[in-house]
């Protein structure tokens, strides 16, 4: 028995920048909410607690993106599209090309600044769509072209 190998391709290295920005924004938001709440309620939080929280937040912002970058992978072959995503929990998904319903190429406003795109492949599966984030725009265009060509070659309504 051979173990299931990882998908072949990494996402774009620039995705790390995007994830770092997102993580930093989330952490800033967390502090922007937590500090006024604590202050308004007159809670007495000891300074080591603040320090620990700040250290955790900083570690999250610094470590998560590069770790995530090593996990997020994708591959598109003749019979199927295969993705792996996650950080602490990792999810691998395989969708046969004959089950592909729609292919969605998305670029968020910030993603366009870094020339990044996301590809969403929907199937009839109740587990929801497959999503590959942080792809280089050109790579994403090629992938969409490939996926739609292969999905179109499979006739029928794919359910």
């Amino acid at each position, binding site marked *: 028995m051979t173990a299931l190998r990882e998908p072949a391709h990494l996402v774009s290295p620039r995705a790390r920048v995007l994830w770092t920005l997102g993580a930093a924004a989330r952490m800033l938001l967390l502090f922007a909410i937590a500090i006024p709440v604590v202050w308004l309620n007159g809670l007495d939080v000891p300074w080591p607690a603040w320090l620990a929280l700040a250290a955790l937040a900083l570690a999250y912002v610094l470590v998560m993106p590069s770790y995530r970058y090593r996990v997020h992978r994708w591959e598109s072959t003749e019979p199927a599209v295969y993705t792996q995503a996650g950080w602490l929990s990792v999810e691998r998904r395989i969708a046969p090309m004959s089950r592909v319903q*729609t292919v969605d190429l998305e*670029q968020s406003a910030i993603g366009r600044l870094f020339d990044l795109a996301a590809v*969403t492949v929907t199937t009839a599966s109740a587990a929801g769509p497959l999503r590959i984030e942080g792809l280089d725009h050109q790579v994403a265009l090629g992938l969409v072209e490939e996926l739609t060509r292969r999905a179109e070659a499979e006739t029928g309504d794919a359910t």
Partner: protein
Amino acid sequence: MSLPDPPSTPPSGDSPWQPPPGPGWQQQPPPGPPSELARDAEWRRLDLRMLLVHPVNELVRFFPLLIALFLFGSSDDGGVWHYIGVAVPIAIGVVRFATTRFRITPGQIELRRGLLSQSTLTAPLDRVRTVELTASPIHRLLALEKVEIGTGSAGRGSDGRVVLDALGAAEARRLRHELLLRRPGQAESGAGAADPGTQATPAAFAPAPVLLRFDPAWARFAPLTGSGLLIALAGLAASGQFVGNEIAGAIADSGVDRRLASIPLLVLSRQQR
């Protein structure tokens, strides 16, 4: 889209849904409107009349904000903000129209949306399962219809749904017919490969057979449902209470109650004997 020569005899079968053979059934497309699937590879916008609909929709969406703006912004220089408050939703509506495009190639349908964040949705035509036409009152006023093309995708919300909001009513109906009556595998096999035995694509739009029409006489069955019964009982109770109050008032006015008050005493005294 070119169709093969129609078979000399209409497909046999005992399906009750077959339109009666007659003029227009299984003939070449009429020379009038071009096929909606045939306009290859050119990006099309939605109907131009949506320039009227989108801004109105956006204004409605911004309505609470506009109310606030007009109520509290009516101080010295509030006038400018009033204009901005109306102009921004209209601009959003126009941008929405200008940035939405779709095209239908022989094998797939593509929909592009968005100015800042963009998305391109692609679905092979073989995957099309449902085509839904809806028209809000404002759509109907302008003879527009929204086309929602559903695939078998189990996406949540709008994931994987191709929504064309909106096309002209005639164009939308034509598109619906052609998407639904398309033969599987048509894109690859081409017209010549279609098996005449299974060909079931009426080129002209045979009017859909009416299954059932609403009959006002059905209304008499309405109270037989649970909710109908509940409403009827509630009505009965309310009217009963009202009538009861009226009777009580009438009795009090006539003074009968005082004369009747002695009767129970009489009854009691008889029983004691």
